[in-house]
């Protein structure tokens, strides 16, 4: 067992986990933060993207033990005081989700993109989403949603 002290969405957690626990398993199975999804076993789909110390990262490819002492944000932490984050709103406005499975990861990635690049071009947005797969193939509206969120 490993002790993990971690701050998630501005709340402190202290959990004992098995050595081989993946971060996404800690989030979903132990902490019931099920907004973060798992879509693959090969680090390719991006459904599990969250922020670790401000950077978007695939939580299926990090051990829970590795985030001891870190600050995490998951999709549950984006909205504040009942108000959706601007990216969440623009996904809604642009019908950028169909089944919604890939959406939490894409939203978390998009937030990171706009933090690092205030006005990305269409090709920069597409490149940024390289590590995401939307099985409903709704890419066009996903790009539109990010473009709308650029202000």
């Amino acid at each position, binding site marked *: 067992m*490993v002790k993990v002290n971690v701050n998630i969405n501005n709340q402190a957690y202290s959990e004992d986990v098995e*050595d*081989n*626990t*993946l971060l996404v*398993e800690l989030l979903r199975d132990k902490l019931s933060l099920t907004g973060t999804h798992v879509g693959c*076993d*090969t*680090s390719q789909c*991006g459904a599990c*993207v969250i922020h670790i110390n401000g*950077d*978007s*990262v*695939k939580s299926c*490819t*990090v*051990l829970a*033990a*590795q985030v*001891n002492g870190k600050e995490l944000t998951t999709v549950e932490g984006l909205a504040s005081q009942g108000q959706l984050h601007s990216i969440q709103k623009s996904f809604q406005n642009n019908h950028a989700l169909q089944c919604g499975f890939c959406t939490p990861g894409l939203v978390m*990635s998009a937030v*990171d*993109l706009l933090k690092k690049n205030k006005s990305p071009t269409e090709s920069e947005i597409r*490149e*940024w989403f*390289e*590590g*995401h797969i939307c099985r409903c193939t709704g890419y066009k509206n996903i790009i539109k949603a990010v473009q709308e969120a650029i202000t």
Partner: protein
Amino acid sequence: MYNFRYHKASTIETAISLIEQSDDPKILAGGHTLIPTLKQRLSQPTDIIDISSIDELKRITLGEGNVTIGALCTHAHISNSPEITKNIPGLADLAKQIGDPQVRHKGTVGGSIANADPAADYPAAVLALNGEVLTSKENHFAANFFIDMFETALKSNEIITGIRLQIPKSSTYKKFRNPASGYAMVGVFVARYDNDVRIAVTGASSTVYRMEDIEGMLKSSFDNDIMEGIEIDTTDFNDDIHASAKYRGVILKVLLEEAILELKET
């Protein structure tokens, strides 16, 4: 997921003593190759030794004509570092072409080099930039370090601490990505120095190698004319579902021409 014991090492010394106490240890840096292979049980170590919090391995330092990059620098760090974008733009560009942005936030240069995947990008840069692989034991010249597919000169209780590269006059990395995995089907790094030209190829065969014959021709005349009539020797090239050896040869020639054209006026 596959079961192992997890250890956190906050210094290189602790990591080495943990290695020596374990049956079948593996070092965890960025984990973006290791964790997927653990999930698939392609690798089944007894102990995972996490070195990812050793901050002294996360620095990029400029020296006299060279730059030293700590083993734990991520691809994102390298591609955005002013020291690298200014002095070795070819390397910044290489780092930016690895994986996807989320992978680049975690994957490290040391991990990539230790793994020595035949299609990895950094080995081409280390070899072309007359580099050394720095470890807890000694410094290895790149030419002696990369031995074969997934095989390097690293001993089991030796940890990569960084790489040191000679800053070229100009450099570029051209890569033909596998459209599905993004790995290099062929990648070629070309570096120009005052009296030297160095070319290293990755992805084409079982390990990275230099093209000394073409380097020689470019040393006397750095012009893409020299490529006319050149036949790439593809005898030892990989021949797999992604590309035939012959196709890899064709790609390599085109990439090399593009690289020469780009560096011609530099």
